[in-house]
């Protein structure tokens, strides 16, 4: 039976991990994500799981990767500076096709910045933070309830696609206390590690779905995992043909599961002249404003991708067909706006509402930009 509790976003995230079958957490203290580690330090040991506080964020993600290679569902949680440290090994998880969930609670500004301030400045980093071409999926929760739900989904996607999945809540979503619905066992889908049997030694060969499912360490196959480009046998290859086909297959494996990766919320976009686009917590402000304006007779729509990487391109292009203007509201310098501009070029007027002071986006700021659009229309 589902039950509803009043809890913080970070606690909801930790509960989501437990629900999804996470049995390994390695982390390093950092504001504003520490409560996730604290929650799991308490709970994991009681259900035969492992909690370990590592010496830094690099060690944390590496321990998670080792745990996942050995068959456990693993997660780490951090914030900006720690997320930057993890980037190299996010690439390692991607190239070895190791499922792992990384929660990056976004705080404001580069470097140490302002640890207690909220922001959405790691949107681009979540996609392109590690070097080279690699696949990645990122989800942006807007509520404490979505912290639970999206963490479970992140694990599922990670298992299905065997790739790192990133959850990027803002500090305010991590700390907000709201009702969180925790489903009973079996009420929400949980994807277990998908195992394959092997006749030969092509442990990294791809099924029709384009995903490699190498065996776990200790499974009796004597598997070889490497951070180098590898052939289907798992061993290094430097032949340009191999490197090309490997990189393409790695990046394009997301395409086989496109349906799984399209998840967004929208209201009234189809006939809207102006669409408010946002993600995470600022999406809530946009929804509220779009509803108010609809009531007042304005043709305003609202669009919020829940899975922000990959961006739901086709769906949004179709939905925004009639719109002459798109306003992208973000707690950053316009990172998602770049993505929207890329889709429409100069066809539409694309404006940003941007704030980078560590506090929430006021409705009045969005209204100011809206007024400008309406005046010009």
């Amino acid at each position, binding site marked *: 039976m589902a039950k509803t509790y009043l809890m913080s976003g970070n606690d909801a995230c930790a509960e989501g991990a437990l629900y999804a079958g996470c049995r390994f957490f390695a982390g390093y203290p950092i504001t504003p994500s520490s409560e996730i580690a604290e929650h799991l330090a308490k709970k994991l040991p009681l259900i035969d799981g492992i909690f370990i506080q590592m010496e830094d964020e690099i060690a944390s993600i590496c321990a998670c990767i080792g745990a996942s290679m050995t068959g456990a569902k693993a997660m780490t949680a951090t914030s900006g500076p720690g997320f930057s440290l993890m980037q190299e090994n996010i690439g390692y998880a991607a190239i070895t096709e190791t499922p792992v969930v990384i929660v990056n609670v976004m705080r404001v500004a580069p470097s140490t910045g302002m640890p207690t301030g909220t922001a959405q400045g790691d949107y681009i980093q979540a996609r392109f933070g590690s070097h080279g071409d690699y696949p990645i999926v990122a989800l942006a929760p807007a509520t404490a309830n979505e912290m639970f739900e999206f963490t479970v989904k992140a694990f599922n996607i990670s298992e299905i696609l065997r790739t790192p999945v990133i959850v990027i809540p803002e500090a305010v979503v991590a700390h907000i206390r709201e009702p969180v619905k925790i489903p009973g066992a079996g009420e929400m889908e949980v994807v277990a590690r998908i195992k394959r049997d092997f006749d030969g030694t092509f442990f990294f060969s791809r099924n029709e779905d384009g995903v490699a499912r190498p065996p776990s360490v200790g499974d009796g196959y004597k598997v070889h995992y490497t*951070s180098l480009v590898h052939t289907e046998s798992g061993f290094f290859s430097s032949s340009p043909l191999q490197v090309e086909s490997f990189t393409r297959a790695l990046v394009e494996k997301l395409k086989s599961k496109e349906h799984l990766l399209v998840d967004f919320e929208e209201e009234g976009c189809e006939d809207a002249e102006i669409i408010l686009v946002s993600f995470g917590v600022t999406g809530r402000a946009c929804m509220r404003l779009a509803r108010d304006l609809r009531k007042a007779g304005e043709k305003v729509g609202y669009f919020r991708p829940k899975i922000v990487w990959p961006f739901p391109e086709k769906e949004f292009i179709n939905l925004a067909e009639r719109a002459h203007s798109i306003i992208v509201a973000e707690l950053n310098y316009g990172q998602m706006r770049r993505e929207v501009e890329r889709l429409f070029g100069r066809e539409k007027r694309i404006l940003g509402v941007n704030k980078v002071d560590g506090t929430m986006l006021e409705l009045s700021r969005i209204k100011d930009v809206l007024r400008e659009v309406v005046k010009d229309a």
Partner: protein
Amino acid sequence: MLESFIEKYAREFNFPTIWCSGCGLGTFMRVMMKAFDAISLDPNKLVLVSGIGCSSRVTAYTDCNTVHTTHGRALPVATGIKLVNPSLTVVVITGDGDGTAIGGNHLIHAARRNIDLTCILLNNSCYGMTSGQVSPMTPHSAYSSTSPYGNIEHSFDLVGMLKSAGATYIARGTVYHYPLAEKLIVSAIEHKGFSFVEILFQCPTYFGRFNKVPEPADMLREFKENGVKYVPGKDKPLAENQFYIGELYRDESKVEYVELLKKHRHERLNLMKLQGQYDGCKTKNRTL
């Protein structure tokens, strides 16, 4: 015809190795496989984890579960593996650059935790893979491609460092004294807790050439002449180039990490059962 232990533990299909002629890593790999065979390690239950560098390529040539990680990160990846499946024998292969520079922090922390891993650090006094740059284990005043006027820095006292960090087994060997190296690897694996074995090996291509010892045999002779067998209680002052070899430290009193983890979990669950807070199912202990 390959010897049986090589047939058992080598991925011959990946031979020849990438190592330069005269490199000591081939000797080491043979010694390592012989050690595995001496204690009949099941390749399916054995995990070799390495970082980046010449020595870290050992994983591709060894037929067991092998994980070649990113630069310096073999120990934390191995920690994750061991914690999830403590029944596996986990051996970490690292080099002096991989293990003491970029991965130095992980080295001291793995030792501090006393987790049951065996870390074999292969020391050739330089970064061989990138053509012989100075490393934290390059001796003071030695030459390298990035210390062309002599190394002004000092190298680590690895044994002292590992001891104070909390390692419970520390040994040093060389590829010249290979029967000893085999014994040390065996004892390190059999030791319950964090065990550390430093193996000195020659890099004639870079370190040797830069320091006017380009012949592998001459480098091996230096190991032979300068390695002093350690006898507990009979420490003596060593000459400048001399170093101890053998088992240098052992502490069997400290409880290993996974053992402690199990003990604590058991005690906690028993206490909760007594207090009626735990019903053995997952739902109740998820009380919010």
